[in-house]
């Protein structure tokens, strides 16, 4: 007699192998309601991620309507959410925003969300903030916030300014600037208006790992102020500084706030008790010496200085205007 195999009779290993061919969306839609606790447990034990851009138009609307009418569905299982500047992502943000109310700030749509990755290629901070503000509250689960910017123009500083103003702080924060000035196409004339010194006082108490870009080296002091980053252990800073040294000097003369001086550092900064890993890109030798002389870095174990440069104008031009390097043998 032939033995009849059913899906339910397959071992976990085989089921997991089958699951690996399906997207989280398809997998959950197909299996989460199956009347078999072993399969259901298997599906819920996997860490799920969702890319809204790979969901069909019809399925997307069906899913949101299902959530609206039946409440929790597979989105409860989502661990990582990736959003782009696409139309589906925009629709999802609109829907998600509406799920937060004045009285209920709990993330009911993605109740297990721990990682949120957002490709912010166009100006979108107004849309993103209504989601981020409740997401970082203590009763929500977000641990990892990664926002990717195409370049370090206004879009970046506006978002940074908002994150600082609303004290949006989670365990790991990565504010990544993808491209140096070469891809931007032309040299910008940013003013000193966009730096950390013009923003509200930095206070990200929950942030343990941070990657960010700043405009000028003087902004470093705001990162080491008391209560700015009290839990920080890993700090990765890129000093973008688009200006040539001459422009920098002009700004420095007109605005004493943007100089990195021993006095200002010693007055305002506090001992970094937890900082273990420090990475700095594009700092001048002089600024680095000033910084290390003035700070008390008691726990620092690893220091990495990438493309440090002497104060010669030529380098600043070359490094900042191209951010691209050719090696020669």
């Amino acid at each position, binding site marked *: 007699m032939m033995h009849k195999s059913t899906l339910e009779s397959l071992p976990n290993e085989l089921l997991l192998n089958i699951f690996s061919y399906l997207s989280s969306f398809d997998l959950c839609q197909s299996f989460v309601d199956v009347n078999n606790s072993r399969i259901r447990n298997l599906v819920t034990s996997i860490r799920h991620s969702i890319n809204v851009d790979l969901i069909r138009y019809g399925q997307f609307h069906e899913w949101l309507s299902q959530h609206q009418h039946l409440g929790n569905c597979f989105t409860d299982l989502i661990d990582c959410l990736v959003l782009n500047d696409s*139309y589906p992502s925009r629709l999802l943000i609109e829907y998600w925003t509406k799920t937060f109310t004045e009285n209920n700030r709990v993330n009911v749509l993605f109740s297990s969300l721990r990682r949120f990755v957002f490709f912010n290629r166009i100006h979108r901070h107004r849309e993103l903030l209504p989601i981020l503000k409740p997401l970082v509250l203590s009763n929500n689960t977000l641990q990892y916030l990664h926002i990717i910017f195409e370049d370090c123009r206004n879009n970046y500083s506006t978002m940074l300014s908002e994150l600082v103003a609303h004290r949006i702080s989670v365990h790991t924060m*990565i504010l990544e600037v993808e491209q140096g000035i070469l891809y931007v196409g032309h040299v910008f004339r940013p003013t000193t208006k966009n730096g950390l010194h013009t923003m509200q006082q930095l206070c990200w108490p929950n942030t343990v790992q941070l*990657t960010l870009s700043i405009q000028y080296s003087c902004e470093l002091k705001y990162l080491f102020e008391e209560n700015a980053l009290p839990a920080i252990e890993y700090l990765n800073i890129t000093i973008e500084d688009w200006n040539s040294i001459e422009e920098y000097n002009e700004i420095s003369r007109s605005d004493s706030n943007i100089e990195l001086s021993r006095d200002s550092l010693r007055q305002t900064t506090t001992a970094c008790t937890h900082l273990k890993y420090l990475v700095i890109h594009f700092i001048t*030798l002089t600024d680095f010496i000033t910084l290390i002389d003035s700070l008390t870095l008691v726990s*620092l174990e690893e*220091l990495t200085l990438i493309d440090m440069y*002497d104060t010669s104008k030529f380098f600043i031009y070359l490094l900042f205007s191209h951010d*691209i390097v*050719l090696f*020669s043998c």
Partner: protein
Amino acid sequence: MIDLDNLNQFQKVCSSRRLSLKKLHFSLCFPEKIQHIWKTSSFNCNREWPFENMNCYLYDYDDHDQLIREMLFVISNCPLELLIDNKRTFYSYGFPTYVSAFARRTVRPRLFQWTRNKQFRRTHQRIVNCHVKQFYLTDFIKQETNPSIISTCHSHWNLSFNNLRSFIFDTDSILIEKSQRIIMLERILDTSPNLSSLAVSWEDFRHCSRQYFQLQQVRLLLDVSYNDSNNFFDIHRLNQLVPQLYVLETTRGIMKQNEYLIGFILKICEHLPQLIHLIINKNSALKSKITSKRIFMRNLTAATQDKMFHGHKIHLGPFGGSEQISIWL
């Protein structure tokens, strides 16, 4: 006046007891002329550096237009893999000399760009194990044409780009023979099991011999503007090459908004049933009259409603007047 005074201070700071570092890595850029001063100074041989592996070399910088050709003198104690992990972009023909196997993962997406074929084979060999997420191959043959070097690639390409997710193959079709271009493209596609996104000229891609099940997103770089729908590209052939295509974009060559295009769009939707997003004329700069766009949109909507019964959403351009057409299926 360029001197090494700052370097002296840097050495002192690094050696001071205020810092009790377990690891210090740095790369320090100087003008080329500092090389002579460095060689005659005591810095390169004194024993006051609190670390080993001091190294110095020249970065050869030359920009696209050959307006600047300069050398940078770099003093570093970084292993090159650490430098690569921390840089946004490499633009290199000589860099493989320094590259070894990679051990670390980073948050920054990598963009590697080659300009010349001189080191192509070695570069390919060296980067197979690193965490390159995006590989941009363009104009690498501009300076010198040497087909024998490309031929020698073949026997060395039994390696795998396991981490590569995105590949842009945009080479100069005049300066490199078609057969050679196709061999290179095929080799990279064959050796990248996790590649999901490809940007490529249709003229090259259509000659590839295998099926690429790993690809989900394809951007076709079309040659010129067409009026005739028969010449855009062969949908049947594309479906054979990429059986699991979810996102299809066309760019560069503009498909004019007329009745041929409507027919072509319907044909794509019919022959590629798995497609989720179709974006025609992505990022086009060409602008047509608003009235003719309205007529086109009306005709396209009517045609798609007749032929596509499941839900879908059509957008014209991100901005008014742009030739971009986006369809979410």
